[in-house]
């Protein structure tokens, strides 16, 4: 009963809402079929605006709330802990192992996925008749784009558009505040995991935040976003600043690592463990805060 009343509501919104919302642009809306191209270049066709959405990634959950559509989320992953309201939403498993059965049971009209890691779920869900749209931004510019596209799909709202515009402004402002010329940029080592030692390559989202905050990621040229690397590479490239983006190490521990004492960041005590990894690792709206936190630490002692 409950479900059918949701459907009715969705239908009503569709009938009355779609006429008002139809916006001219790259996304066509003809014969009640709405077509969208997602971040992986897939064309997603919807017969109506999605009202029952499942998010399969914590950053997407944050984005949906940011765009003002949080109440449309009927399922999230166990990692989706922000904003706090997200914790009230039913769980459909974790990021890498969502439960297809649970998803089908919730009868969503759209599932949002991210990254190539989740590609295998796309076909599965699609074959079950559930539309899947992927949000996969790899830097802040792409994030704004992804948000705009997603907002178009959810139905452009003035509040949503405002949120994106304000975020774009903040990003531009932070970029100016923290701008440094190439040779002035301090070398930064991003530690994602200690055991094994992992860092983020230049194609990763967090690397873009470091660049925007005026730093230079020393681990450029890595083939993937996150890689296990040899400690001697870190020591050799002698970073000026180290960020620990995982909960397992404290900054004091770095000076006790054998061989790490010669690193500039360790000598000068410029190791930071106090930034919430979620705000810098999740390609979502809190990235703005992440850049600010990183930028302030990069400027410390200069």
């Amino acid at each position, binding site marked *: 009963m409950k479900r059918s009343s949701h459907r009715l509501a969705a239908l009503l919104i569709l009938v009355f809402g779609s006429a008002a919302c139809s916006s001219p642009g790259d996304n066509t809306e003809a014969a009640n079929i709405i077509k969208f191209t997602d971040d992986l270049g897939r064309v997603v066709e919807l017969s109506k605006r999605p009202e029952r959405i499942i998010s399969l990634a914590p950053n997407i959950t944050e984005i949906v709330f940011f765009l003002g559509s949080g109440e449309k989320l009927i399922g999230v992953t166990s990692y989706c802990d922000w904003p706090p309201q997200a914790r009230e939403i039913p769980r459909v498993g974790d990021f890498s192992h969502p439960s297809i059965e649970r998803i089908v049971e919730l009868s969503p009209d759209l599932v949002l996925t991210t990254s190539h890691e989740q590609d295998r779920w796309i076909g599965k869900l699609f074959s079950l008749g559930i539309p899947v749209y992927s949000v996969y931004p790899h830097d802040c510019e792409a994030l704004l784009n992804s948000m705009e596209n997603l907002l178009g799909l959810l139905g452009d709202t003035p509040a949503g558009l405002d949120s994106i515009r304000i975020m774009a402004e903040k990003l531009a402002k932070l970029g100016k505040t923290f701008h440094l010329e190439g040779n002035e940029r301090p070398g930064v080592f991003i530690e994602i*995991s*200690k*055991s*094994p*030692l*992992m860092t983020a390559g230049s194609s990763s989202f967090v690397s873009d935040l470091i660049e925007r905050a005026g730093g230079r990621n020393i681990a450029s*040229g*890595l*083939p*993937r976003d996150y*890689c*296990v*690397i*040899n*400690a*001697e*590479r870190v*020591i*050799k490239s002698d970073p000026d600043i180290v960020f620990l983006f*995982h*909960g*397992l190490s404290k900054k004091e*521990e770095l000076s*006790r*690592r*054998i*061989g790490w004492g*010669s690193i500039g960041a360790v000598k000068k005590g410029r190791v930071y463990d106090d930034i919430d990894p979620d705000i810098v690792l999740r390609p979502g709206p809190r990235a703005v805060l992440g850049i600010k936190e990183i930028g302030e630490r990069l400027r410390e002692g200069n």
Partner: protein
Amino acid sequence: MKEIEEAGFSRTRSVRQLSAFFLLLVGVTILSLYTGPAGSELEIITKVRLPRILLGVIVGGTLAMSGAVFQGILRNPLADPYILGTSTGGALGAIIGLLIFSGSKMVSSIFIPLLAFAGSFLTTFLVYLLSRRGGRVPRETLLLSGVIIGTLFGAVIMFLMTWAEKELHEILYVLMGFLGIIWTGETVTTVVTVTVMVAAGSAIIYYHSRDLNLLSLGEEQAFSLGVDVERTKIILFFSASLITGAVVSVSGLIGFVGLIVPHIIRMALGSDNRVLIPASFLAGSSLLVVADTVARSVFLQEIPVGVVTAIFGAPFFIYLLRRERGPG
């Protein structure tokens, strides 16, 4: 009896052979010290590469030596700590330790190797009991039990992984075999603990290497030659599991070293355990140091050393299996 046993054993020859393997290890170590992505700065060589190479020496040597012991006791050329489930049992113990002692580092640096040893020993014992058929241990049942117990404990590890959040990467690398640990006071304590366990276990094994020669002839013959068969087997099992569990707790699951190395040594030097066991240790060390040099230097990102040994080891295992089926 003494004459039969001593026939064909020349002390000077075995010393010469072992010296050759020792020189091989020294050569490989020097080569490895100067190979790496960050050039040859003294700081990096002494503080990053040297500890890692020493770890490789201990781990590779131990795995090869316990392989030789298992092959000897079980009179089965396909036995090795990985295939018998001993390593998986050790990994399970280490992972349980990792999850329990997640917060307290000083405690964990001693207890994780001990838990890994308990896991290894119980697994080997279980596999041995399961595959025993009227006093004999047929190779088919032994391999099957090893694989089954290994799979079972592997599943338990996977189950534990669904509960782990922060430790997930660490567990994954335990499963793949990895020597690139970050060295701090705690890891030094762990590795020293492991080394003490390995030294004790190796001494016990070497002391029994003559009995192992007799065991290899068959249990009845060994018994008639005055060996306390059951006691010797238990001691050797215990020691080999001790050292395997200890190294697995720091290196994770590294396959095939324990299988391949004793075979190559046997082909080259014969099957006298008094030579086979120390030579296996030296050759296993050399092999793992080389494999780890590949793992840490070839690509921009590190590859788990277990992957390297498996890529070279699996074809060799297939070769052994086919040869086993042939004339014998």
